[in-house]
């Protein structure tokens, strides 16, 4: 008999925390193998140059150095990208040819061109210094608009231009919509280069022997996907490649989803040297190579009626993808998805979107939390705000007027949104901020020379990505998968195919499985990360934990109940089936006579240790694997965020006084964990929107290669973030749960920018560009004042 899952909605303490709190987590840098050597890269100091010579003699002669390789030594491996490792999207695509090390030419500062292997990292650093590279600088292209010009230098001469990807996305009749418009908002929005940057950098440890093949410990969100791409690239049978994400990983946020040149290099060296090869990226390399996301220009037009109804949208999106040399995403999967998600929580029937992705002499764009949509969310919610001001309509009202109202909803460009409630979310946000009285307070403040403002943003956030989207996009499945397996002592192992690293799966999956089986979360242990001991899945991406993976665990647990009931009935010598039992307090309990009960531990013991007691003919064992795929092409959560700020007009400095996040987790499994995900997402959003920026100078030199220059917010930089639940259970998951946290940063830039602009209404500034640094705000104030 189905009972409500007793552990759902409980904020229990996390099972993963104890080991981390006593210093016994196991992260990649902690793993040490006998005979291990360490690997490091010589990287380009030019943004674009011919390599005229590489002299490795001195480095190779240094005691303790085991190998020095250059591009010429890896050419035989072939180009990294294959059909399998390149997004398969409907637009026109160019594919770069490249190797783990650059050959003859470097294309950005930080481009790996030689590799050194040494017995320890101190020797390694000395040796890297001794590699002597001579370059002949070439013309560079740093600005994406310049990249499109006919006279711009080419990164890949065989392409004919610098366009990596182009797609036109029309839907409805945008031309007619604009012809009917009472108001057209037309603006150029620019979102800078910023993104993930986890606290643990990338790293890997590769080992090879011809018997077992290759084992790669890797900081990755997607061990199974990496495995099959590695097998393909290294020309090994799939059975000879094993990828392991260590038990613990210090964050990823999208940056550990692509397949990188460095990890291919480590595998090749392990095979060549026949000894374990370890690579730990340093922070400088990390800032030069990963977490560089966003970076888009939007020429956005919005057609509106006088009453605020949005009739149509046009957008010319230009994405700066850098050198495009990582596998799986190749720099353009993000802007593609961002374009598909541009209209987002708005119901806009007529759209005309044109997406152009260019290559430049910068590091390749990598995925970052709010995959591809951070820039577009900023642009559209800013444009809506401008329209509200022009039409003198309240910003909440104009959003409610255009928000998705009925569910399920299919957007003009085909995105399915299953459930949500924007009016309810807005009501909670407004109540929290006492919005009704705020306008009064604001005008009084203005009279006293204080500038207070409120800004809103709204949007839908991906709750997992279904196979229907993921198969065409990345040639990978979207299903969630879990194996639920009793041990002989009535404890349960859940093996999942994803690789969580802070999201709390060990706890939330234990909660739901415990609830389905009448056990306690303490009885459940969750394993993951090793391709040789867990089921195949796409990995930890796109908020699919609570939507897809956890749902698979629920289904697998449920699938065990008929067999458990049959064993219990047999042990009780009665005729009964699944519907006659409840599973509660560690027992299978007969509902018609609760004194008739069998400990679940006994059922497991019979199934595994003493199968002679099983009903005649029943197969031993108690385990099941389920693959969960939602019966819809998209699940989402609908959210409203609001920021309240005070701006100093003299300096452009501002303080976020309140940040209120109203979020929809469907049915939260562990509300404390959900809050943590939202806090972190908002924090990254504020960092990315307000203070973080990867800056390249006119020579393509990256100026932000330390954490002092690339400013990740500290505890003093962030406000207290308030979270409010407004949950609409998904009709497509067994418990109504939704994934949470991946898209959260995308809510932030418009909320904060709208608030700042609102505060400065008397001065008439217009914000179109990120990041929202005090300097930028100050300049806008100066410009507005000199106009008067």
């Amino acid at each position, binding site marked *: 008999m189905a009972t409500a899952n007793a552990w759902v909605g409980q904020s229990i303490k996390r099972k993963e925390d104890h080991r981390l*709190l006593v210093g016994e987590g196991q992260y990649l840098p902690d793993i040490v193998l006998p005979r291990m050597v360490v690997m490091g890269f010589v990287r380009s100091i030019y943004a674009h140059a011919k390599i005229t010579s590489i002299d490795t003699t001195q480095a190779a002669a240094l005691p303790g150095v085991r190998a020095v390789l250059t591009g010429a030594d890896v050419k035989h491996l072939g180009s990294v990208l294959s059909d399998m490792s390149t997004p398969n999207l409907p637009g026109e695509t160019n594919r770069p040819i490249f190797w783990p090390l650059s050959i003859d030419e470097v294309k950005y500062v930080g481009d790996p061109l030689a590799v050194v292997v040494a017995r320890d990292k101190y020797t390694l650093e000395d040796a890297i210094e001794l590699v002597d590279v001579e370059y002949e600088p070439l013309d560079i292209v740093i600005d994406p608009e310049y990249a499109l010009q006919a006279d711009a230098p080419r990164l890949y001469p065989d392409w004919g231009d610098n366009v990596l990807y182009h797609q036109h996305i029309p839907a409805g009749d945008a031309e007619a919509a604009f012809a009917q418009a009472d108001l057209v908002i037309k603006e150029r929005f620019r979102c800078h280069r910023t993104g993930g940057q986890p606290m643990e950098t990338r790293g890997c440890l590769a080992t090879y022997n011809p018997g077992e093949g290759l084992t790669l410990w890797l900081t990755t969100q997607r061990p199974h996907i990496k495995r099959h791409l590695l097998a393909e690239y290294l020309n090994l049978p799939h059975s000879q490649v094993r990828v392991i994400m260590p038990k613990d990983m210090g964050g990823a946020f999208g940056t550990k989803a692509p397949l990188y040149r460095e990890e291919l290099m480590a595998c090749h060296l392990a095979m060549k040297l026949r000894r374990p090869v370890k690579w730990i990226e340093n922070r400088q390399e990390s800032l030069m190579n990963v977490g560089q996301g966003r970076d888009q220009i939007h020429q956005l037009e919005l057609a509106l009626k006088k009453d605020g109804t949005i009739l149509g949208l046009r957008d010319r999106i230009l994405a700066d993808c850098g050198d495009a040399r990582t596998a799986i995403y190749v720099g353009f999967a993000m802007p593609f998805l961002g374009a598909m998600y541009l209209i987002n929580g708005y119901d806009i029937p007529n759209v005309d979107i044109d997406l152009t992705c260019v290559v430049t002499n910068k590091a390749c764009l990598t995925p970052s939390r709010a995959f591809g949509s951070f820039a577009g969310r900023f642009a559209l919610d800013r444009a809506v705000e401008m329209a509200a001001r022009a039409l003198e309509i309240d910003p909440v009202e104009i959003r409610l007027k255009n928000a998705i109202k009925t569910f399920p909803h299919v957007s003009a460009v085909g995105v399915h949104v299953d459930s949500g409630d924007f009016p309810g979310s807005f009501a909670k946000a407004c109540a929290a901020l006492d919005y009704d009285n705020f306008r009064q307070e604001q005008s009084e403040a203005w009279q006293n020379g204080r500038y207070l403002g409120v800004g809103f943003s709204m949007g839908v956030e991906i709750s997992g990505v279904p196979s229907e989207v993921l198969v065409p996009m990345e040639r990978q499945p979207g299903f969630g998968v879990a194996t639920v397996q009793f041990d002989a002592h009535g404890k349960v192992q859940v093996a999942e195919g994803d690789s969580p690293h802070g999201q709390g799966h060990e706890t939330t999956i234990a909660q739901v499985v415990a609830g389905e089986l009448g056990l306690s979360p303490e009885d459940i242990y969750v394993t993951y990360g090793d391709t040789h001991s867990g089921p195949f899945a796409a990995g930890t991406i796109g908020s699919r934990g609570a939507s897809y993976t956890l749902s698979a665990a629920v289904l697998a647990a449920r699938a065990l109940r008929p067999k458990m009931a049959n064993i219990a009935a047999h042990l009780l010598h009665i005729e009964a089936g699944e519907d006659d039992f409840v599973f509660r307090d560690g027992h299978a309990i007969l509902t018609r006579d609760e004194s008739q009960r069998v400990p679940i531990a006994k059922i497991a013991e019979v199934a595994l240790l003493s199968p002679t007691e099983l009903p005649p003919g029943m197969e031993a064992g108690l385990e099941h694997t389920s693959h969960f795929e939602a019966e819809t092409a998209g699940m989402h959560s609908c959210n409203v965020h609001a920021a309240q700020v005070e701006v100093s007009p003299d300096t452009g400095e501002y303080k976020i006084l309140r940040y209120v996040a109203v979020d929809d987790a469907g049915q939260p499994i562990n509300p404390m964990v959900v809050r943590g995900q939202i806090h972190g997402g908002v*924090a990254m959003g504020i960092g990315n929107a307000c203070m973080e920026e990867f800056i390249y100078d006119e020579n393509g030199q990256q100026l932000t290669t330390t954490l002092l220059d690339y400013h990740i917010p500290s505890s003093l930089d962030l406000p207290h973030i308030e979270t409010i639940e407004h949950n609409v259970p998904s009709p497509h998951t067994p418990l109504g749960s939704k994934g949470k946290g991946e898209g959260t940063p995308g809510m932030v830039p418009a909320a904060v920018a709208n608030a700042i602009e609102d505060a400065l209404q008397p001065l008439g500034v217009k914000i179109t560009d990120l990041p929202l640094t005090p300097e930028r705000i100050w300049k806008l104030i100066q410009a507005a004042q000199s106009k008067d």
Partner: protein
Amino acid sequence: MKRSISITINGEVYEETVDQRLLLVDFIREVAGLTGTHVGCSVEGRCGACTVVLNGKAVKACLLLAVQADGASVLTIEGLAKDDALHPIQDGFWEKHGLQCGFCTPGLLMTLYEFLQNPKHSDEEIRTAMSGVICRCTGYVHIVEAVKHAIATVEALPPEERKEWFPV
């Protein structure tokens, strides 16, 4: 150039001959094998993940050479709990979900270990105390709650017991 040094970590003495340029954080992680202390930046001293308590003061172990710590007493995350009893700061983090990936956690715990000996109570003061350690996952909200939890625990303890939790 090598030198013989002796460093006491979590009450155990490590007498080793090390390269002069060996960083203290590498001594802790690689020589003593205490990998609970993390490295999150390249000797910039910004991330704070490597923070340990050295002679009673929270310091960034990537900014010191091991030879500079010759004769010193160091406390790391592994030395916080007493057998199975967690230190009040560990307990606060567990109760209030003060960690997600856990990578910054050693640095925060050791920084806050020092702070808790003489705790201040406002959000602003708590946030100031921990501003030297970057957390990318939590947005710090739950960490502030964790610290408040720990302060309450510590302040409710009888003085003798309270002292026992702060041996260095």
